[in-house]
């Protein structure tokens, strides 16, 4: 089948979306951007291909009468086992890299002891991490680095204590290795992993192997033909394709928001290091836009910085702010100063949740100023980007929109992080089908 791909290279994460010839979204993928955009775009694309395969499985399973009712459960299990397969492969790579890098650590005399310690660490890691993929277990993150990293820290701390080896040396080996593993493009052997995952699923759940295998294999046979790719986002110049395949993220966000909510007239996107206020017409064409200039205070990274200052996880900030009962005003327009204000308020005895709620309000106030510069909020208003997932930010935004612009429909899609990539995929589809019409054949 003909597929069109949009890739959005963000400062924090890289996203990919795949659409079919009719513009229907088939799958999406996300990964951390690292400092290597090439790998990030490959990984995000691979993730989108995986998600597309799952969509295709779903379609096939739905058409198989005896499996129709079990489709959701089967897919959940299949994805879980597939993730485990993928994860174990990466863990193996990490293991190999660590073993190689153990020889380069200059601070340790006994290298054999270091290698032995690593063996021990990886044994416990495999067990521990496999349990993270057991049925029904909720994972904090799907990123390999997040999961493997924290488990490695824990295991190596214990091993260091037992063996008397330096913890720092073990950490050093990990740091070197994880970068190598992450910057290696993923192996493309997805089909094999899906089949291995299927074996696991049937073993664990008791589904009839042959009956399930047929629709999965049929779906795997379907060729995902990459006809045209469009890249967007800050890293877009790094994408390995020609200039015509690159679109500004403003246009992609505008179009993406229009596709998600056709009534959209104003889009607010708060990403890692930029905030965009975009006005679009009834076809998703951008009429005006404003972005933060020179300073990225009030973007996602601001919250990341505050989370670090408070020694909290980024995802804990929103829920904590929701507990707030009184308003604390944070005036600073600078991220670093906001950190100082935060400590000042803490010293004055303000509650953490009230201060954090104040910080969320400060972010949204900055965003409101950018929106008003772009022409204000018109009905409907679509909020996208990583910060749209933060309930406290959304709460403040709703309040300020009502105060300033009255009753306006506010759209927030749970997948809003893919808005830019979706717009890019649609641009790819339009360019791809046009090129196809022009040449009367296959544009790829």
């Amino acid at each position, binding site marked *: 089948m003909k597929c069109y791909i949009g890739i959005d290279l963000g400062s924090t994460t890289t996203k990919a979306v795949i659409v079919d010839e009719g513009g229907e979204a088939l799958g999406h993928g996300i990964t951390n951007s690292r400092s290597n955009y090439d790998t990030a775009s490959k990984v995000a694309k691979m993730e989108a291909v995986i998600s597309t395969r799952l969509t295709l499985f779903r379609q096939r399973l739905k058409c198989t009468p005896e499996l129709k009712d079990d489709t959701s459960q089967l897919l959940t299990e299949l994805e879980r086992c597939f993730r485990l397969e993928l994860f174990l492969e990466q863990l193996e790579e990490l293991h190999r890299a660590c073993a190689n890098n153990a020889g380069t650590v200059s601070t340790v005399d006994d290298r054999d002891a270091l290698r032995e310690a690593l063996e021990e660490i990886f044994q416990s890691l495999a067990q521990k991490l496999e349990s993270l993929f057991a049925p029904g277990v909720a994972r904090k993150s799907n990123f390999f680095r997040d999961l493997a990293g924290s488990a490695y820290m824990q295991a190596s701390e214990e091993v260091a204590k037992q063996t008397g080896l330096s913890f720092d040396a073990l950490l050093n080996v990990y740091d070197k290795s994880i970068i190598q593993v992450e910057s290696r493009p993923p192996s493309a052997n997805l089909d094999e992993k899906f089949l291995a995952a299927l074996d696991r699923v049937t073993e664990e759940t008791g589904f009839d192997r042959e009956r399930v295998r047929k629709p999965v294999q049929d779906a795997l046979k379907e060729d995902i033909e990459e006809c045209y790719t469009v890249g967007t986002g800050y890293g877009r110049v790094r994408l390995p394709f020609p200039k015509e395949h690159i679109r*500004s*993220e403003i246009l992609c966000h505008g179009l993406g928001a229009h596709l998600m909510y056709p009534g959209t007239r104003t889009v607010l996107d708060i990403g890692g290091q930029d905030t965009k206020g975009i006005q679009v017409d009834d076809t998703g064409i951008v*009429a005006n836009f404003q972005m933060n200039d*020179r300073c990225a205070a009030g973007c996602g990274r601001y919250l990341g910085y505050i989370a670090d200052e408070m020694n909290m996880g980024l995802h804990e900030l929103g829920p904590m702010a929701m507990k707030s009962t009184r308003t604390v005003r944070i005036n600073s327009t600078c991220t670093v100063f906001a950190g100082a204000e935060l400590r000042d308020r803490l010293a004055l005895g303000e509650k953490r949740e009230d201060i954090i709620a104040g910080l969320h309000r400060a972010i949204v106030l900055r965003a409101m100023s950018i929106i008003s510069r772009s*022409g204000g909020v018109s009905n409907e208003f679509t909020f996208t980007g990583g910060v749209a997932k933060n309930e406290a930010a959304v709460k403040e935004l709703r309040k300020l929109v009502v105060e300033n612009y009255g009753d306006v429909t506010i759209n927030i899609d749970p997948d809003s992080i893919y808005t830019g990539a979706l717009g890019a995929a649609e641009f790819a589809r339009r360019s791809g089908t046009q090129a196809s019409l022009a040449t009367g054949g296959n544009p790829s």
Partner: protein
Amino acid sequence: MSKESEVVKESSMLMQKEMIADNYEALTSTAESGRKVASTFVPGNLNELIMCFGMLNNLPEINAIQNGMRKKSGAMIMDAERNGHSEDVCTYVKADIGQMSKGNIAPNGKPMPAPDLLLLSYTGCFTFMKWFELLRHEHGCETVMLQVPYTGDGVITDNMRSYVIKQLKEEVIPAMERVSGVKFDIDRLRENLRRSAEAEDNLVWVLESAKNVRSPIDAYFGGVYYIGPIFTAFRGTREAIDYYRVLRGEIEQRIEQQLGPVTPEDDMEEERYRLVVEGPPNWTSFRDFWKMFYDEGAVVVASTYTKVGGVYDQGFRHDPDHPLESLAEYCLGCYTNRNLPNRVDMLVNYVNDFQADGLLVNSIKSCNSFSAGQLMMMQQVEKRSGKPAAFIETDLVDPRYFSAANVKNRLESYFQMIEQKRSRIEAA
């Protein structure tokens, strides 16, 4: 960025380069020549009058621009900040203050003499007043301020005109006589003004040539070179007449050969976007900034910055038959002295008359005088012309405020936005 050796230079550019070098040479050899120096600003620059007294014209803004383009302004600004000038103060002022604290070396490497007269024509920029106060404090020389009423209602009244003329007669000319020891001769002024008008005719012809679709000039990046002589120490000189005659000849040839604008790298290839620009360019990354346009096929067909030293394209000419009246009219009409509705009218007319695809505002971070109101202006131009507009922020000569990645990102988005709108109109 291309190297100096690869930069294409037309003969008009070489002529101008020589004129500027000669003026700096004259300025830095007053100890030998005994000539007096008047410092003044570009908007409201009374060069014809200054010439009547045999004085030389030194323009601190131009020095700041020269230092900006030669990548020297950054260190000068830091120097001024060390001496207590805030980060938010106009960077032309700080570059000038910094230049003084570094021995007041002119761009030709020789020490600049202290001015004998500070001639402040106040034309809409309140910072100019404070700047000259600082200079007066530094040099302790004679200072004269020409109060030019702001055209807040959008019209020049007889009252305003006679107020300026009165000051010219009673304040400015006597001060110049005192400083130079030369008696004012109105016929000499008439002669200078006649030469000005002749050069101005050709300048306007050059600027209007951008109405050709496939414009032979860039009226912003190229435009800042074209306005050079008229805006500075050469209005009213024979050299300026020659310069504009040669320039016009070059442009006529370009039109004949159907060539696009000159760029630092080569003639511009395809003309893909025609823009009107409001606001001065960034000087510290001038070439990089320009490249972001010509690489994308964007030509600026009209700009307001090229009108800050006189609105000749709106019909104004220096008039030898009404010498003092026309100097007054000139100061009152400068773009910087125009009110917001007047500026909006000019921009809308430019978008329409030059068949532009839209308006770009380059707002200057440290210029409080002119950044105020620019967003409102942009929205009005958008509404009245129906063409898309965009807004970027940079600075004059402070290299810290030019964020290339951000500016490029905004520009590319804007160009693609124009493209998208166009294809929608074509599809309809």
